[in-house]
């Protein structure tokens, strides 16, 4: 039954790990963020960091935030993969078989999430190399990966939904411009909520990236995670993937 889904998912994975350019991007993008953006607060007094960021190392603060933001960006790759298959005719090859359309949707979402999760060990290693002390154990790693996977499923589903009925190359870029920056800056991925005006705090409270970033900080930097955040992220993933699967059955086009 799931053979078709697994075949399509493995295709996505093979296309990721066989592309040197994909690896360059997967490694360079988060490393750049951590090294350049993370170092931008290096000369800020540690009392300030401690008071507002609850850590004396800004890299430690943005690491879970940047991991979460990278799951937002991989959503774009899911939608680009859909467009590519439509443009090169491969979607027709899939649609000519009895495989359900929502399998195609799910394979793109899971492919995007896997792509994002590949970045986790890379970023953790870079952070440790830059002197960040992390609370790494089986529970913290599993919770972090689950939180990021849920976030990735949600955003990959959202992106993929926008490209179900189009084959326009420009579509993923337009969507990214419309939603990536507002979602990133209205979350607590880069700065604490205390910095925000009230209206931005309200948005932050309903932004899934906030919950992923906060949960990531709690498991990596302290030992007292708020487990309800994981439930919120799971619910976000579930709702988005159900919406996407239902829409793909009706609206996903081969061209």
């Amino acid at each position, binding site marked *: 039954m799931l053979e*078709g889904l697994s075949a399509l998912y493995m295709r996505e994975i093979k296309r990721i790990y066989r592309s040197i350019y994909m690896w360059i991007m997967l490694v360079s993008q988060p490393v750049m963020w951590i090294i350049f953006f993370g170092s931008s607060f290096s000369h800020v007094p540690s009392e300030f960091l401690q008071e507002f960021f609850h850590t004396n190392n800004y890299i430690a603060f943005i690491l879970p935030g940047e991991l979460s933001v990278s799951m937002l960006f991989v959503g774009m790759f899911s939608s680009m993969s859909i467009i590519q298959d439509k443009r090169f005719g*491969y979607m027709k*090859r899939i649609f000519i078989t*009895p495989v359900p359309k929502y399998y195609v949707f799910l394979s793109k979402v899971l492919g995007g999430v896997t792509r994002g999760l590949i970045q986790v060990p890379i970023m953790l290693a870079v952070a440790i190399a830059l002197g960040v002390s992390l609370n790494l154990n089986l529970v913290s790693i599993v919770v972090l990966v689950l939180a990021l996977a849920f976030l990735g499923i949600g955003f990959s589903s959202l992106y993929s939904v926008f490209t179900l009925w189009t084959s326009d190359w420009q579509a993923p870029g337009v969507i990214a411009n419309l939603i990536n920056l507002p979602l990133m800056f209205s979350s607590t991925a880069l700065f604490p909520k205390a910095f925000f005006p009230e209206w931005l705090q309200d948005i932050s409270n309903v932004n899934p990236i906030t919950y992923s970033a906060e949960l990531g900080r709690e498991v990596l930097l302290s030992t007292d995670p708020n487990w309800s955040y994981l439930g919120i992220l799971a619910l976000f993933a579930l709702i988005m993937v159900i919406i996407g699967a239902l829409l793909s059955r009706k609206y996903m086009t*081969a061209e």
Partner: protein
Amino acid sequence: MSVVIAKNLTKKYNDFVAVDHINFQIEKGEIFGLLGPNGAGKTTTIKMLTGLTSITEGDALIGGISIKERPNEVKKRIGWISSEVIVDDDLTAWENIEIQAKLLKVKDWKERADAILEYFGIKEFKNRKAGKFSTGMRKKLEITMALLNSPEIVFMDEPTIGLDVNTRASLWNLIRQINKDYSATILLTTHYMEEADMLCKKIGIINKGKIVALGSPEELKEKYGGDVIEIELKDGLNVELNKFGQVIRKDGKISVKTGNAEEVLLGVINTIGSNNIKSLRIKKSSLDTVFLNLTGGSLEEEGEFDLRKFNMMMRRARR
């Protein structure tokens, strides 16, 4: 036994009728050609028969199963070869085949795939990326994928379009081979007269969404054929040639349709006067003249005209 029965098959895009109530049957083991210019409705017909697009009116039975009511059952029983070769260039030939087999839920596909690859002489390259294959090898890989599930019918949508003369000739041999050795029933679309004439046992001529004639190449030539004398006259000249056959005037040219061109040629030249003739050519009875007789235009001319019109219609329909 009919493998395909199309009954009043119709596709509309808003007000534009791409395929208009067409009917035909394809018998087991037959190579059936759908011949027509670009934009005539050939690809849309294949898309409807394979479940790639919805059917507006009518239905089609593939192996006795309605594509409208049970598309997934039909999809398990068909093979498909696109006009552009569609394989994943980033994957090896074997990986491409594996995905196709799993999507089609084919059991024990490995032995069959190996046998077909061997038959086509590309087995030793199965672990090479498809992107490194030549056009001919890619086409063979695509045909391998289409034959994996022992399909009751293989749909080939303009299989030789864009290929050079040599590759086209070798693909014709390949089509004949798989028809014979794999007992594959084939529906192919083409706008090449010689392709349809050479390969197909039965031909449906489609123009502007309608099937205008149906039969074997020989039957069509006998029924609708005849020679055509095509004359280009000097400007402003208007002569009466009806006594020599049916006359069609189009784009400054006169086409005289007649049973045997040689018998009336002298009379035609004398009537016009040799000094008034800019050019003259005789087309012997062929599918081209069949098409001309049926539609009043040559396949190439119709193709250019319809392609623009069809694209325009499609753009409008997608808005």
